[in-house]
Structures are given as structure tokens and as C-alpha cells.
């Protein structure tokens, strides 16, 4: 396959950045998108140029590290996969492919296609956990009954890998799908219910403080999420937050 890449190059946070065109030839349709990027970087290094910086880690769709806005969509054109699971056979010979970093004020570009997603960690740090010591004295799983429907919903929410595709595709760079997935994942389970009120208040407050936008219910995040996290979680977060705001005595 021959393809033309239009890649965002940016030399650090202060650089203005620009789209640079690269012609690629003899690309195998069986290559993953990241392998194709590796080939590009090999060529750049051979020529003595600066390779394109991009995030990647497990390369099997579970770590949430790979990002990139490929041809107008986070993780590229296919549904329910991450960039590392995208293959060149999803494109046609002669295609032009735009490769851009995730865009959000809360995700500043570090270099080229690498963005700083520390903001997600900061949201987790204010409540995305349960304060129960489970190490060494784990109790029997059956001693705390969880309704099957709740367990399923909590598990669905827990599949969020925190990649940031929801923020990237949202016209408002809103982190509500991510935050909602974490809030509902824990609020649906007995261990998480204890701190549910505080969690909802603190995580939403942090999300606002970090400069993410607001949800306008367009639903783009749900479509682009590689794990198919549903908007149902945002509704649950909205309920949790409203209840917590009214009940909280702080």
C-alpha cells in the first residue's frame, strides 16, 4: 500500500506546531497502525530526522496509553478498538491519513502526538478508589451479595481504560464520560457506596477545576469510546451529584 501521512509535528509545549506530510510506500495491510508509525520513524531516523513522538505501551488494547486522532476520529475509523488494534487494512491504497494529537486544554501537547493526560490521574486521586483495606484479609466474595444487574453495569463501567478518546472527540473536551464511568463503577458496588456521595462531589469539582468542558449530550464520546462506555453512566453521575449536593452538610 502507498499512503500519504499528514502528521502533526510540535517541538514541545511552547512550539506552535504544524502538519508535515510524509509519503509512505510498500506498507503491508496487515501492519498495525503503530507498526506503520514505527516504520515511518525508522525511515526518519535513517535520514537523520527527528522521529515522531507518540504514546504506546501494551499494544493489545488494554492499557489506554495509545492515543492519536486518526482521520478525524480518536483511535481511527474502526469502532470499539484502540489505535494499537487498528490495522492498515482499514485504509485504502493511496489514502491520505491525518494524524493529530488529542486536542483539549486539559491535555497539553508534550511533543508531536504525545499529550499529557495527568489530568485524568488527578480526577482519580480525589475519589476514584475505595478506602477499604483489602490486602491480606480478603473476605469471602459471597459475603457481600451484589445484584447481577448492578455487577454487570459496574463491570461495564470498569472497562474504561482512561485513554481520553471521549475528551478528544467531544466538541467541548468534556471529561464527563470518563468521570462518570469511575463514579458509577464504584457507586454500584457495596464497597464503593460508602464514599459515593463524597466521590461524586470531589471528582466533579476536580474535573471542572482542570478545565474540561461541559456535556452537551451530543453522544460523540459514547460512539468513539474503544470500550463502548454508555451515556447511561453520565446520567447516573448526574443523579449521584444532584443527590450528593443536596444531602451534603459540608
Amino acid at each position: 500500500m502507498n499512503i500519504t501521512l499528514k502528521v502533526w509535528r510540535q517541538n514541545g509545549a511552547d512550539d506552535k506546531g504544524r502538519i508535515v506530510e510524509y509519503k509512505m510506500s510498500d506498507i503491508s495491510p496487515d501492519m498495525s497502525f503503530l507498526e506503520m508509525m514505527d516504520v515511518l520513524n525508522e525511515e526518519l531516523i535513517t535520514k537523520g530526522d527527528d522521529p515522531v513522538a507518540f504514546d504506546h505501551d501494551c499494544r493489545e488494547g488494554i492499557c489506554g496509553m495509545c492515543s492519536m486522532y486518526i482521520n478525524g476520529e480518536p483511535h481511527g475509523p474502526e469502532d470499539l478498538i484502540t489505535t494499537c488494534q487498528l490495522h492498515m487494512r482499514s485504509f485504502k491504497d493511496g489514502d491520505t491519513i491525518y494524524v493529530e494529537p488529542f486536542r483539549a486544554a486539559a491535555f497539553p501537547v508534550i511533543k508531536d502526538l504525545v499529550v499529557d493526560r495527568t489530568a485524568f490521574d488527578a480526577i482519580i486521586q480525589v475519589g476514584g478508589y475505595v478506602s477499604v483495606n483489602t490486602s491480606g484479609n480478603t473476605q469471602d466474595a459471597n459475603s457481600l451479595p451484589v445484584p447481577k444487574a448492578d455487577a454487570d453495569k459496574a463491570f461495564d463501567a470498569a472497562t474504561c481504560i482512561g485513554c481520553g478518546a471521549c475528551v478528544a472527540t467531544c466538541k467541548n473536551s468534556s471529561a464527563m464520560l470518563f468521570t462518570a464511568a469511575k463514579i458509577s463503577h464504584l457507586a454500584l458496588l457495596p464497597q464503593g457506596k460508602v464514599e459515593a456521595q463524597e466521590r461524586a462531589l470531589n471528582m466533579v469539582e476536580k474535573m471542572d477545576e482542570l478545565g474540561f468542558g461541559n456535556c452537551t449530550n451530543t453522544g460523540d464520546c459514547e460512539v468513539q469510546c474503544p470500550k463502548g462506555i454508555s451515556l447511561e453512566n453520565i446520567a447516573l453521575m448526574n443523579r449521584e451529584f444532584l443527590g450528593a449536593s443536596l444531602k451534603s452538610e459540608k
Partner: protein
Amino acid sequence: MSNSAGLFSSSLGRKYLMALTGLFLCSFLVIHLIGNVALFTDPVQFNEYTRFMSSNPLIRIMEIVLVVGFLTHIIDAILLTKANKAAQPVKYAMDKKKSTWYSRNMGLTGTIILVFLIIHLQSFWYGYKFGVIEMAEDSSGAAIKDMYTMVLAAFSQWWYAAIYVVGMILLGTHLSHGFQSAFQSMGLRHKKYTPTIQKVGTAFALAMTLGFISFPIYFYIIQL
């Protein structure tokens, strides 16, 4: 943040406010549309209806509540939009959205509807209250402001009728996203009921658009 005053300064609180005022404004549309049906009955009845609406003390109080509702919805929208623009300062060179055009352009359709509203209020509300208006007779023979003739005159101009048609189509797109979106913002989402809410939202948007469009079109055609 966690007290009720802080609630409405949070992102979610502002969404609740947007949803509640939006649904309140929807209820106003229903009342307005039902009242307008008097235009199709007879001129005397319509003129008496407008006199009732502009003099009844309860309606006058509701008028103030309505203005507050509109202003809250508009100011809240401006605050939210400002934050949203700041959240994504750099746009993509290539961006493919899967969502509907109208769900992404509530600010645009809302702004055009506001312009329409100003034109509408200038013509009829200001015109009725402070403008030069012909007098007619009510059912008891007393003098009454002739709003009916005023409406007739306004819609005899093709461009004025066209403003209404465009305004109401945009209102329809605004409602078709806004109505069901309000339930989602309030956290009212349910596997069983949400599909019905979405259908009701679409039906409501269609009913309001077709209902309000019928007046300029009807009065323009009968005066050709």
C-alpha cells in the same frame, strides 16, 4: 461547592439549570400555541383573548417568571459555551463527528431563535403595548385593541412570514435535541423509558414547529 449556592456554579449544576429552564420554556410554548388557536376561530375571540392575557394579574406574574426563565437559560448557555470554547482551544485539521448537526449547534440555533424572539416581541408585544394600534369592538360592543388585524397585516408581507417559518424550523431542531437532553442532564435515563422520551421529544419538536408555522403560512395565503 457542596452547598446549594455552589451547586449551580458547578458544571453539572449549570446543566441542571439549563434542563429545568428549558423544560419550563417548553411548557410556555404549549400554552402559547394553544392560545394562538384563537386566531383560527374569530377576530373578536382572539382580541378578547389578547386583552385577557395582557391584563390578568396572574398572567402578568407569569410573564415575569417567563422572562426570568428565558434570561437564566440564555445567561447559563453563554457561561457554558464560554467554558466549552476554552476547553478546546485548538481545533483539528480533520474532524469527523458522528453526532447530529443540531445537537452540536444548540448555541447557534439558540442565538437565531433569540434574534427571532426579539423581532417577534418588537412586532407584537411592543406593538400591542406601546405602538399605534387600530381599535375594534369586543362581543359587548366596547372598544378593544385590534390585535387580529395587526397579525393579518404582519403576515401579509412574504418576508415577514418567511422569518417566522425559518425561526420555527430552527426552534424545532433546538427542541428535538433539547427536550430529550434535559432528561439526560437531570439523570433521568432508563433503558425502558428513554426511547419513549426520545420519541416524545421528536414528536414535541415536530408538533411545535408545524403548529407555529401554520399561522404565518395560513395568513399569508389567505391574503394573496
